[in-house]
């Protein structure tokens, strides 16, 4: 097992669950005023001569907004890019499922928006657990993203005058969200995909679809390659390169039920973690307030109703506990429009974590609606009355159709039922300002890194971050790394590759040889239940400890009693899933430990011990104003490093949306 570059761990025993360390790699943010940082940094970064670029190979894993845009842009610059995705085509990365929109500080509406305000909203929305320098850059670059997408042919919604249309979104009081019907993610991803295709056409990017990354290879402590499995032939292969870029998305599927694609997984980042990359804030998981409620045991997937519906919908539950009347028969004065009541200034547009928790609270009180009382109404009736059915249809037609397909209910007549569901992970591999992890040459972009959203992500900001990382940040910082590094020639014949290949093969064989009694899904579902029940929307010490105790047992059960049918050298979907679940079974444990250690409430992480009398989250800036960056420590307990967060520009304040 390769280890971290520098021996900088000074383990200190702590709570018997982890070690604490005082060391932390620098965040590499340039000095000077925040508004000039990125420009200054771009000027200071080293460049690679255009004729030398094709001599460098960059391995990009993932082909979503971040990975696809990075691969295309680096290819465009002249580097030799190899791009890998587990899907059968880069066009299917799960960025495609984002519905609502993408934020940008264009201020086209002249409604008081600015780069600074987007920066401010994002830091505040993330409950002061994000790095200011990164967030400012995100807000700054957001402006270029929209230009780039429009130039690439993304058909954003337009007004009659031909100008771009925008709408408002949760957590913001300006209309800065650009959208393409309810399919913004799809249109942005297709724009990226088309740009990627252009580079494939030019021979600058070689695409490896249906290829899963199973390990990262370090040579002398530097990321120099990856191990992949061809999901059609089962061949386990090694790829060498000069830099590795992971844009493999989030790990919310650890909960089994989520709005993620079924194939979304944490394997790439988890393998990197196990090779020494720090994992930032693993317990920060966004629970989205507007998903279609669970229907039954067999359920495999939760579907989101875009948050944009909250623009025109009013959230309510009956005032009385156990009121089983159909919604139409509950008179106006017996309804509790609880978001409007509790958060009068943001109302139905309160940020996601707050809206989710409020929904949980009313359901815990027994006022939930629908099967099992796990749901609240999102009522469009007032808007339909005010704007007409046609306008609503124009805005949300495809969502309404989808809702009807799934539930069999007509959302124009009966209020939509929603319930929170796991949607996004703010946590991810720790990266510096250059989006490089603590392993030199290992870059992490998009949802896979921990960076810009702190403890809670605002709506329509995921697309912004993916494209910011992919189009603008990585294509500047990766070349800088290449230009300033002396590379020793490495091929896949290097012992480090042989070793990693061997480890991967052994692991695959081991999974196939168990032939126990339980299916992968049996164990996976149990893991999901443990995660949701004990590390879900509301967390407390006792629950977390209970859940944490269960994970090793599940892991043991997996490695002794799972049944993976078929062989390694063939298309084997159960084997793919088994590998992912095996990693979730380890990641889940780290999430519990992180959630346990952070005894404050912040953003999406709500510790029941830490709340104000009115039930609002109580942050503890004195003790927790840091990013928890976890280091793998072999079979021993993980090591906690802390990146302290300084807030020079946005003043620490209680995050209130009242």
């Amino acid at each position, binding site marked *: 097992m390769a280890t971290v570059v520098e021996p900088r761990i000074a383990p200190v025993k702590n709570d018997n669950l982890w070690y604490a360390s005082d060391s932390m790699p620098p965040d590499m943010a340039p000095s000077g005023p925040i508004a000039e940082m990125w420009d200054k940094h771009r000027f200071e970064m080293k460049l690679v001569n255009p004729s030398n670029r094709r001599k460098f190979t960059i391995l990009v894993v993932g082909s979503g907004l971040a990975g696809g845009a990075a691969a295309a842009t680096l290819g465009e610059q002249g580097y030799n890019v190899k791009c890998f995705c587990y899907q059968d085509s880069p066009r299917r990365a799960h960025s495609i499922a984002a519905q609502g929109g993408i934020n940008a500080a264009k201020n086209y509406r002249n409604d008081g928006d600015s780069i600074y305000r987007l920066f401010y909203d994002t830091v505040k929305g993330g409950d002061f657990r994000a790095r200011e320098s990164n967030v400012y850059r995100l807000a700054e670059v957001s402006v270029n993203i929209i230009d780039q997408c429009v130039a690439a042919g993304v058909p954003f919604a337009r007004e009659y005058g031909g100008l771009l249309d925008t709408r408002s979104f949760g957590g913001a009081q300006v209309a800065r969200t650009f959208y393409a019907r309810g399919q913004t993610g799809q249109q942005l991803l297709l724009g990226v995909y088309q740009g990627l*295709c252009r580079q494939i056409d030019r021979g600058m990017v070689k695409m490896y679809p249906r290829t899963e990354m199973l390990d990262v290879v370090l040579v002398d402590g530097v990321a120099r390659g990856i191990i992949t499995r061809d999901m059609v032939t089962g061949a386990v292969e090694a790829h060498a390169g000069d830099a590795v870029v992971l844009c493999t998305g989030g790990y919310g599927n650890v909960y089994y039920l989520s709005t993620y694609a079924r194939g979304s997984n944490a394997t790439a980042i988890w393998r990197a973690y196990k090779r020494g990359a720090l994992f930032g804030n693993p317990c920060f998981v966004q629970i989205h307030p507007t998903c279609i409620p669970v229907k039954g045991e067999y359920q495999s997937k939760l579907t989101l109703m875009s948050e944009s519906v909250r623009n025109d919908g009013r959230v309510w539950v009956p005032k009385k506990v156990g009121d089983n009347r159909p919604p139409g028969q509950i008179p106006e004065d017996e309804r509790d429009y609880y978001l409007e009541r509790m958060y009068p200034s943001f109302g139905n547009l309160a940020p996601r974590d707050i809206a989710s928790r409020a929904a949980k609270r009313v359901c815990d009180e027994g006022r939930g609606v629908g099967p099992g009382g796990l749901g609240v109404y999102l009522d469009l009736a007032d808007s339909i009355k005010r704007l007409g059915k046609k306008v609503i249809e124009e805005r949300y037609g495809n969502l309404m159709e989808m809702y009807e397909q799934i539930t069999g209910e007509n959302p124009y007549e009966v209020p939509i039922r929603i319930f929170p569901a796991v949607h996004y992970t703010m946590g991810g591999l720790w990266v510096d300002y250059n989006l490089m992890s603590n392993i030199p040459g290992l870059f992490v972009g998009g949802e896979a890194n921990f960076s810009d959203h702190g403890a809670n992500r605002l709506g329509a900001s995921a697309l912004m971050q993916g494209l910011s990382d992919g189009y603008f940040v990585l294509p500047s910082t990766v070349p800088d790394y290449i230009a300033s590094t002396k590379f020793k020639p490495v091929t896949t014949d290097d012992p480090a590759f042989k070793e990693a290949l061997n480890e991967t093969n052994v692991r695959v064989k081991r999974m196939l040889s168990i032939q126990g009694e339980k299916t992968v899904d049996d164990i996976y579902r149990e893991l999901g239940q443990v995660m949701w029940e004990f590390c879900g929307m509301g967390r407390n010490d006792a629950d977390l400890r209970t859940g944490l105790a269960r994970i090793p047992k599940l892991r043991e059960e997996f490695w002794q009693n799972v049944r993976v049918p078929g062989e390694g050298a063939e298309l084997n979907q159960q084997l793919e899933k088994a590998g992912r679940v095996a990693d979730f079974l380890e990641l889940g444990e780290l999430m519990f430990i992180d959630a346990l250690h952070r005894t404050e409430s912040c953003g999406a992480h709500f510790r029941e011990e830490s709340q104000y009398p009115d039930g609002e989250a109580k942050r503890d800036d004195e003790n927790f104003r840091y990013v928890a960056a976890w280091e793998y420590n072999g079979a021993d307990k993980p090591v906690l490093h802390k990146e302290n967060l300084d807030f020079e520009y946005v003043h620490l304040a209680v995050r209130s949306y009242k």
Partner: protein
Amino acid sequence: MNLTLKVWRQKNAQDAGRFETYTTSEADPEMSFMEMLDIVNQDIIRKGGDPIAFDHDCREGICGTCGVVINGVPHGGHGTTTCQLYMRHFKDGETITIEPWRARPFPVLKDLIVDRAALDRIIVAGGYISASTGSAPDANGILVPKPDSDAAMNYAVCIGCGACVAACPNGSAMLFTAAKVAHLNLLPQGQPERYTRTANMVAQMDKEGFGGCTNHGECTAVCPAHIDMSAIARLNRDLLAATLKGVA
């Protein structure tokens, strides 16, 4: 619900393949089609068999990964993707035939999984606008009339599932190709490469071995993104113009 499934099983691309019959009594009208297949697969695994391989990913109808032919209709014929097809559309006791997409450019990889890389190669041939990163003018610098933008969006919503090819009696990829051509050719940004794009994409489409369009409209009838046949007319028109301009 009790169901009998006749499922196409094929070990790999070389295998000849055959139908095999499975039964389940655990189906529920509120399940999605894929969830029903999940249950059948769990049962197969427990009995020591090889589960049915089928493509799926987002399970919310947008990624375009899933797709099987159900009782002779790609995606089952309810205007959705296979993953958004719910079992309430089937009757208790029904026998359901499940086959993969069938077309020469879509070789079967295993069971119900086919290789649709041919569709990617059509886009690679020209389904893009050459806008290098960082070179873009202000997004509001070029006005796009709302009707054009809306029309482009109507075509841009293609999810690339390949149901159009599977449904076409000729195995034609015209609706897929036309949707991208129509989307990009309708926008001002798409004009400079309009005719080369059209010519190159059509040449690639033909090279892949897809059949020709005879305007049956089966493609549009099964299209989960509801892409209209007018896309094909636009493609034809632009190819004709490309030819007259000597681009093709």
